């Protein structure tokens, strides 16, 4: 296999145990975790809190050494400086040196990344502009809001124009506008051929932008693949909304439905399949009621995620 064909991020049977507290209680953070992220894709790393997402990410950026198993980023060890130079990393709820101004912090980050001296200043200016923080360049980060810090966080991650961008819970603490901007940045990275790996427990973000997802529960990768493979387009149920059905017709409708929700003179019925839809429509015609909507419901990522959690026995 030639170098260029290897996955950008590759984890082979990663295992990590932490020992904490006075009695050195064992906490199994990663268990035989396997994972591949291909070049140019946006990979969503999903899991409930404490599933091991952050530990896995720390292995990929060389902050944690696994007990067993191997991780490769760009075909080499994550501790290799040639690799680190090509990774942009944003930790979960990042903390910065709050005594520095935003600009000073980015200058420091640039110096440590080995950006050529004459490129540092223009690059920092450009990044501040990109995350729309140029107005706060000379303010100490002490007083920054969570959203402002997150913007500086993405700026420092993208400083060196990295090939791989690893983000731990990048949407945490952002308002809807901020999340939209963040998604746009991630998509623009993909358009420029970068590989993006990010962890989250916000499923909606993943459904919108990810090419592939991996689901990690209790340190194990329980599923990974393309979203459309994981979520088969099979119709789970159909929702029918009817206006103006009363009396005995209502009772008849309730009998064929799985669930009935009423709101004013609207009734929303959930039925199992198309045959039931036909029955509902027949009753509605008889009652001279109006059918205002018929919506098939396919399995969502949330449904899938919840069912996986249940199988794994996690509350």
């Amino acid at each position, binding site marked *: 296999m030639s170098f260029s064909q290897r996955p950008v991020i590759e984890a082979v049977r990663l295992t990590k145990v932490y020992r904490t507290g006075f009695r050195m209680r064992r906490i199994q953070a990663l268990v035989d975790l396997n994972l591949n992220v291909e070049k140019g894709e946006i990979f969503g790393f999903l899991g409930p809190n404490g599933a091991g997402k952050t530990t896995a990410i720390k292995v990929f950026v060389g902050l944690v050494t696994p007990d067993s198993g191997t991780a490769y980023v760009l075909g080499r060890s994550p501790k290799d400086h040639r690799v680190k130079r090509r990774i942009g990393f944003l930790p979960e709820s*990042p903390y910065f040196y709050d005594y520095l101004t935003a600009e000073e912090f980015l200058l*420091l*980050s640039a110096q440590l*990344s080995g950006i050529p001296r004459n490129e540092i200043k223009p690059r920092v200016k450009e990044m501040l502009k990109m995350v729309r923080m140029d107005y706060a360049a000379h303010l100490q980060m002490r007083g920054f809001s969570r959203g402002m810090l997150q913007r500086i966080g993405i700026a420092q991650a993208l400083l060196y124009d990295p090939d791989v961008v690893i983000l731990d819970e990048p949407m945490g603490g952002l308002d809807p506008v901020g999340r939209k901007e963040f998604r746009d940045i991630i998509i623009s990275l993909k358009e420029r051929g970068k590989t993006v790996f990010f962890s989250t427990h916000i499923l909606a973000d993943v459904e919108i932008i990810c090419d592939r997802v991996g689901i990690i529960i209790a340190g194990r990768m329980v599923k990974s693949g393309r979203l459309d493979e994981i979520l088969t387009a099979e119709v789970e149920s159909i929702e029918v909304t009817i206006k103006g059905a009363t009396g005995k017709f209502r009772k008849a409708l309730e009998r064929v439905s799985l669930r009935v929700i009423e709101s004013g003179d609207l009734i929303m019925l959930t039925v199992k399949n198309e045959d039931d839809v036909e029955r509902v429509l027949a009753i509605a015609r008889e009652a001279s009621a109006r059918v205002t909507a018929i919506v098939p419901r396919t399995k969502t990522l949330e449904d899938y995620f919840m069912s996986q959690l249940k199988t794994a026995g996690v509350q």
Partner: protein
Amino acid sequence: MFNRLFSLAVNTFKESIRDRVLVALVVIAVVVMASAKIVQPVAMGEAEKIIKDLGLSAITLFCVLIAILVGGRLVYREVEKRTIYLILARPVRRLEFILGKYLGLMMVLVVSLVVMTAGFYGVMLISRVPVSLYLIWSVVMTLFELAILTAVAVLFSTFVSPIASAVFTFMIYFIGHSTPLLKQLAGMFPSPVIKFFALFAYYILPNLNNFNIKGEVVHNIPLNFPGLLLSAGYAVVYSATLLMISVVIFNRRDF
């Protein structure tokens, strides 16, 4: 490597300079030196020595406090506040990180020494005490003592909390100034166990008395310069050894 080392040192310097604790310590030091002026009317000719002695002692004491208090949380705070993630995820060696932090604090101590010494000379001028540049030698030796203490504080800071680090470093400072006692202790007890531990401590702990030449400079006694040079070399080697141990500990850590 030197660019990164320098950037990390400058950042540590900024961190400390923008910290109120440091400013407070430097100001208090100068105030303490100035307080010696109060004794002038009652000291009957001894005032000059008292002002000089107190001034040099205050410089040492407050710089030692800075080294212990700031040094003790130098590395720990980066880990606790998780700022270290953003440094070590970049192409920065852990060795560079430790050395950068250490050199940054040494820069702070040099600046503090300069400011305090300037304050000291100011107090001498105001008190109309004959000013002598000979006193500077004591400050120079204090710098070498601080090099060792800072390395001790950084070493502790890689694996214990700031408070524990400050306590341990202060103990080492205290014992380091009484190492001759350890040797006496070894001679006094017949028990081989006590003898072994006393001698072990004597050889392993830094002998900080070598850096105390306040008596000599205040009383204008000629200095043993080859001896001082040897002490300076000892400080460099001792600090470098401690820093290497810190790096070894730090390299094994997960974050």
